[in-house]
């Protein structure tokens, strides 16, 4: 199979994806301007995530490619999230086991009576 057999992505698809990306950019700017409280960050991340998936799936031709490349990209993100999640598991919950002043111990383990 000579190199030329590679799938050529039609320009219409590329243009459609580009349009969708621009649209999503406008959406994310608008939604960020209005204060939606706590869902502001997840929403912005969701839109950015979908834009990223669009770029990867079509522009980077993952759709037409050997799926190992998709696995490699997915692994990249998975380990970035692992790094983030376990670091936040530390930074978010610090100092609540050592101090027994009232109100600071979220872990409901009553201290062991020293015999």
């Amino acid at each position, binding site marked *: 199979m000579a190199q030329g057999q590679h799938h050529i992505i039609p320009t219409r698809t590329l*243009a459609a994806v580009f349009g969708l990306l621009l649209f999503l950019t406008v959406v994310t700017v608008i939604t*960020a301007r209005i204060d939606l409280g706590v869902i502001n960050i997840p929403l912005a*991340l969701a839109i950015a995530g979908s834009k990223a998936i669009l770029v990867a799936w079509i522009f980077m031709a993952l759709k037409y490619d050997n799926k190992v490349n998709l696995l*490699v990209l997915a692994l990249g993100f998975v380990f970035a999230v692992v*790094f983030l999640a376990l670091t*936040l598991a530390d930074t978010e919950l610090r100092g609540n086991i050592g101090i027994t002043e009232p109100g600071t111990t979220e872990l409901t383990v009553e201290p062991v009576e020293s015999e």
Partner: protein
Amino acid sequence: MSSTGTTLKHYFVNHEQQFDAAKLGMWLFLVTEILLFSGMFVAYAVYRSWHPEVFTYASELLDWRLGALNTVVLLASSFTVALSIHFVQKGENDKVVVLLLLTLACAAIFMVVKYIEYEGKFSHGVFPGAGFEPHGIVDGKDYSKYDIPFAPQFFSIYFVMTGIHGIHVLVGMGLFGWLITRVARGHFSPQWYTPVELTGLYWHLVDIIWIFLFPLLYLI
């Protein structure tokens, strides 16, 4: 990648294997870029979760209009790169040169906008790290009001992230310049266009990183 077009390296069985190998190698390199930036996103996330009010307050100094413009410019450059791969697969090299020039132009605009942003900040004392002492009034915002604890952290992370991303854009521009000269000299054909494809993949990833950077820094 010798210049005589469709050379098949002796250690590969056929073109297909050589092309797939190059692509897998590029994807693995892109994963290292993702993890490089993941470090900075973790720093951003940790400091934002510790000081959300300082981050939202300090991000008011970033001009989201320029950020949005940069996003559109990068998306456009991604689009032109994707088109250039489309036409190099069809062998219409003249269109490829135009499209790559357009991509280079977009990248240049991106860097100019970034220069304007940085210039605006540096001139008012907003530096990463120790040099941070904002002053002056710019379109209604009194910069000296932004000198609060942990604001330096926000701007340090902002400058490190956009700085390293900017360096990647510059590297991309260099690659496109090199690519344009080679396309002009007719090195690529529908049978062999690997460098164009790989540079395109690299550029799309630089765009994806900015897609995440823009909302996190400028909008929320």
